[in-house]
């Protein structure tokens, strides 16, 4: 009854090639092709578990809060992703964002500069800060870790010196500067224009990375900088563009932060550098460069904030959230190391 097709017996090598892979190997292969899958699985499991513990977690109200909370770190983590993809790291992300934000806010309030122009100048400051990082990395040939450790202090101090350490409230700012806090109501979901802008940033950068020549060169530089140079990629130009684009994203995020917080405070975003790196790493982007994606970073940021919200709704001490984040980072890097050893 069964039809059997007879074919030439496969050679030993062919049989070896067709051998069944162990489940672990198959998972390794799938993750190698799609590194964002493991954070996605973590996110889905976390959502299910937190929803079971406290059904309020899945209510539009809680989810709206989640999106608003995650937006700023997600935006900064997009810039961080670009830099980490080139095997770099940016410790100055929070300081540069705050610096841009303070300039933007003081120009618009006491500076008497029209809102849109103040925003533009603030974004420009972020961009130039990124350019400075890129310049130091490419022209002076300093390791990114050292460069951004230095500029972290420089931007932080510059921001404090410029603002005199004072907090600028949203009431002192024009509507355009506060615009990113505007609430958009979708049924019972309340998200802000800031969240929409972050989503757009993710889409644009994700597209550029996966679909354009520039994106491919970013991956190539992160994979093997010498190989990239040998095939004719202008490596320094790619690196400079990456740091500059990251700075631009931080500048835009500075504006979003004012809308989100309702003020421009020099004490904002103190943990942004570590939180953005955490989101990138949990999202499956390799700290060794050359592999990862923006979508993973967004998922990574969502995981961190889902844990924060879920654990707080579960009535657990906030320190457990910190604890869980640390475990996730170590697990994520462990998985990255494992999938990098994939064999055909």
């Amino acid at each position, binding site marked *: 009854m069964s039809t059997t097709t007879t074919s030439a017996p496969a050679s030993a090598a062919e049989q070896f090639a067709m051998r069944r892979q162990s489940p672990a190997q198959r998972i390794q292969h799938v993750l*190698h092709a799609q590194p964002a899958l493991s954070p996605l699985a973590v996110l889905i499991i976390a959502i299910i578990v937190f929803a079971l513990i406290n059904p309020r977690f899945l209510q539009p109200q809680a989810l709206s809060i989640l999106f608003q909370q995650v937006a700023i770190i997600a935006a900064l983590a997009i810039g961080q992703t670009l830099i980490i993809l080139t095997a770099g790291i940016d410790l100055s992300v929070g300081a540069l964002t705050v610096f841009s934000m303070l300039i933007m806010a003081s120009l618009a309030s006491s500076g008497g500069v029209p809102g849109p122009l103040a925003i533009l100048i603030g974004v420009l400051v972020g961009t130039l800060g990124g350019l400075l990082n890129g310049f130091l990395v490419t022209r002076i040939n300093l390791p990114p870790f050292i460069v951004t450790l230095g500029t972290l202090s420089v931007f932080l101090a510059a921001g404090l010196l410029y603002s005199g350490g004072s907090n600028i409230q949203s009431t002192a700012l024009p509507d355009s500067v506060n615009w990113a806090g505007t609430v958009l109501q979708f049924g019972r979901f309340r998200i802000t224009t800031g969240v929409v802008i972050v989503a757009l940033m993710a889409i644009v950068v994700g597209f550029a990375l996966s679909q*354009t020549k*520039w994106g491919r060169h970013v*991956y190539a530089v992160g994979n093997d900088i010498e*190989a990239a140079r040998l*095939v*004719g990629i202008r490596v320094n130009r790619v690196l400079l563009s990456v740091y500059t684009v990251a700075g631009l994203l931080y500048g835009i995020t500075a504006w979003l932060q004012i809308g989100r917080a309702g003020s421009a405070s020099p004490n904002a975003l103190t943990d942004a550098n570590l939180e953005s790196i955490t989101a990138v790493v949990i999202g499956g982007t390799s700290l060794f460069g*050359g592999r990862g994606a923006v979508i993973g970073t967004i998922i990574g940021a969502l995981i961190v904030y889902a844990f924060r919200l879920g654990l707080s709704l579960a009535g657990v001490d906030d320190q457990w959230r910190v604890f869980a984040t640390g475990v996730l980072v170590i697990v994520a890097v462990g998985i990255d190391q494992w999938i990098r050893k994939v*064999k*055909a």
Partner: protein
Amino acid sequence: MSTAQNEARYGTVNGVDLDAVQEGVADPSQTVLSARKLIKTFGKVIGLDGVDLDLYPGEILAIIGDNGAGKSTLIKAATGALTPDSGQLYLDGREVSFKTPQDARAAGIETVYQTLAVAPALDIAANMFLGRERRRSGPLGSVFRMLDKSGMKADAGRSMANLGIATVQNMGQAVETLSGGQRQAVAVARAATFATKFVVLDEPTAALGVKETGQVLNLIQQIREKGLPVILISHNMPNVFEVADRIHIARLGGCAGVITPKSHTPTEAVAIMTGATTLQKG
């Protein structure tokens, strides 16, 4: 042992009378590449001591030599990775000078480095087109700058098939999942696809097993079949004698002579290479 018998022993390769070539310096108008009196020094170290090099159409020219004999320096000087202190370089009879490897690439010279210059996490098609990616046609390409991924993938597959590389089928496979020989095949296929003048292979079999070495040698012969001359830098005498048409022996920053696998044995080649015997010209 004498290696200096003068009677018509070299014969002809691809219509070039090698006996005439051995007599003196070839006319650059006959060659694909000619280097004349290349000198390169590194401080007090002499890398190239006035070397001549000729590559004829459709041949595989092997460059052999001991460590430090100047074979890498010679090839770097010929492909723009190093700028010689003095000397001339002729490509198709026209004098050229390459400041960077990109200049040489733009002129149609492709080099496969020992490190292969591949991005391991990117797939085969991406690596084939690395640094020369193609955009989609129409507004998706011109406005949105989108890569023509499927087109490049198809072309990569076609190039590999043309060179008879059957062991790799899926162009969407990451290069790091390939074996050493397959990676080498990708790098060689890339060079063969984009070169218009000649291909340089730097120790392509050094890291490979016997079977994979055979496949790569086959690939080198395929490139010659396509009409592209090949410069093969190698330590491996059996490989060199298997595929080379002529063998340029580098020694002490100069050239100890150019032989063919017919004119000399591997043992003689090694003797010339190490200076145990000298090849007398003319």
